[in-house]
């Protein structure tokens, strides 16, 4: 099958919430020899971008977005081993992202990750109720440019201060840009607590991520200077 058609079919699986159809479609794409990174970027992620457009104009709502995310993840899990094997890391930048200490919500994070991946960000998912120490360890281990703090309640949003402090105490603050995400976040409050910015909208946050990464690289704070290829 023509590659463009195959990739379009993958995108449609995500858009149409077709959880049963995505696995065979991914297998067929791999069998066709389409590079794994292209399956993600131009197939699955393209579907998520279209979900975002429909969400913004009110054609789909959060329940449908979450099922689409689920389909995306099902497809990604099949491709992931091939990505690692091929050593393909054509990402713009790397981010570690987790729901902050004391918070076990996943909905925002589960939507944000495919959106950020669709925009070219490699995202290391740290899970939920991530301790300050775990964030510090993740920064040391994965050397990201960005740290995403998912906070879905007002009370846990306030913990941002402690997490930023822990990163500072570890001597890592200058190497990363820290963003808060979630429905209760406020950019002014987040900056007051030491973060760099905040967003309550995954799709709207992409431009913010791009700006923060550019800012970090210009300031010379990035842990790894070479562009990833």
């Amino acid at each position, binding site marked *: 099958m023509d590659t463009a058609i195959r990739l379009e079919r993958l995108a449609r699986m995500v858009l149409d*919430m077709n959880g049963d159809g995505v696995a065979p479609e991914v297998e067929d794409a791999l069998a066709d020899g389409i590079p794994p990174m292209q399956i993600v970027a131009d197939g699955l992620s393209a579907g998520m971008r279209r979900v975002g457009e429909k969400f913004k104009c009110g054609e789909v*709502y959060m329940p449908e977005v979450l*099922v689409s995310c*689920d389909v995306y993840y099902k497809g990604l899990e099949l491709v992931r081993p091939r990505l690692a094997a091929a050593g393909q890391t054509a990402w713009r930048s790397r981010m570690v992202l987790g729901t902050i200490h004391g918070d076990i919500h996943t909905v925002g994070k589960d939507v944000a990750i495919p959106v950020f991946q669709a925009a070219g960000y490699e995202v290391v998912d740290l899970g939920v109720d991530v301790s300050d120490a775990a964030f510090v360890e993740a920064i040391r281990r994965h050397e990201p440019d960005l740290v995403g703090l998912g906070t879905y309640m007002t*009370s846990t949003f*306030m913990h941002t201060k402690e997490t930023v402090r822990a990163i500072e105490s570890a001597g890592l603050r200058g190497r990363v840009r820290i963003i808060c995400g979630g*429905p209760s976040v406020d950019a002014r409050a987040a900056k007051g607590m030491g973060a760099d910015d905040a967003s309550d909208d995954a799709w709207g946050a992409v431009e913010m991520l791009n700006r923060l990464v550019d800012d970090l690289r210009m300031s010379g704070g990035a842990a790894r200077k070479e562009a990833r290829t």
Partner: protein
Amino acid sequence: MTHRERVRAALDHREPDRAPIDLSGHRSSGIAAVAYARLRKHLGLPARPVRVYDPVQQLAIVDEDVLDRFGVDTIELGRAFALDEASWADWTLPDGTPCRMPAWALPERADREWILRSKSGRVIARMPDGVLYFEQAHWPFAEQDDPDRIPEAMGECMWTAVATPSGPLAAPPGGRNLLSEGAKALRERTDRAILGLFGGNLLEIGQFLYRNDNFFLLLAGDPGRAHRFLDRLLEIHLGNLDLFLKSVGPYIDVIVFGDDLGSQRGPQISPKMYREFFKPRHSLMWSRAKQLADVKVNLHCCGGVRELIPDLIDAGLDALNPIQTSCKGMDPRELKTEFGKDLTFWGGGCDTQAVLPRATPDVVRRHVRERVSLFAPGGGFVFQQVHNVMADVPPENIVAMLDAAAA
């Protein structure tokens, strides 16, 4: 006009002598205990123990002298209960003010936080130091659901397990008489419109039990299973509705249902999803309520819900609360123009995100007057601020708001 007449006129879309005012008539028109204590002091009223009747949201019972001061036209049915000192236990508010809390829902101190436990002993809510209300800590169906065990699950969920008065005082079977007698006594001693809080939440209980993401996935990804859960839940609600209205129906004016369908950005679910899963069930509950008692149906429904309003009206809704005007699609003028003949707007009187906590009293007054002038003509409006008065609201602003509403 009496208070009750004023509210009923508004609900019947007849413009009363002034806009009726709701303060603390239900659990989203209330006032945080910290703010209430400061308000009493600011008004120079005699010191009284602050009673926190809603531990989760930390809301205070508003005493009669404050209701009289502001010409409040509503009162919650719960005020008929827990009148004895034995129902209350000592506690301290986050700002150090002594208060009283329902003895059956007393928070427990843990490491740098307060917690609430279910009857089984599980921690179901947390209020870390520095935070002013409790948040949910356990979702009973997050890992594994069981629609045949919804009542047990509701006992392990903050929103459904931590009872406000009448609480366990009127638990069936023996409590029905207490419920009825209490309601009757309240009816006889007040001419304020009485609001009976029922709940009957559908989407929200799905979210409370499963957690938001899981319930959304169920609705969009496994509709058959979602319907099975909602059918079982509806069965429980209809049974409780029957018991509730047979006990208190003759004595209340408004029955308050709840279901937050909106968000800051608009509805959480599509109109199509609302029509499939919730509209028929809401319609059944609301029509059953009106069959059982002469009551108006008020739905507490946070967020931007403009797209759902036609279906809510079609399902039999009389009044919508809280009219969160800062949300997408909730412009007061447009709402009144489009829906004002068919729906009572119970709320929208004062923005609580920016104006009430942070503006000057003069700005608050002007804002309220503008809202009243938009919503009140022709009836179909009951004034309340958009949601509860939070702990950080200055007492001067509360006074400015309520005096402007009554002017």
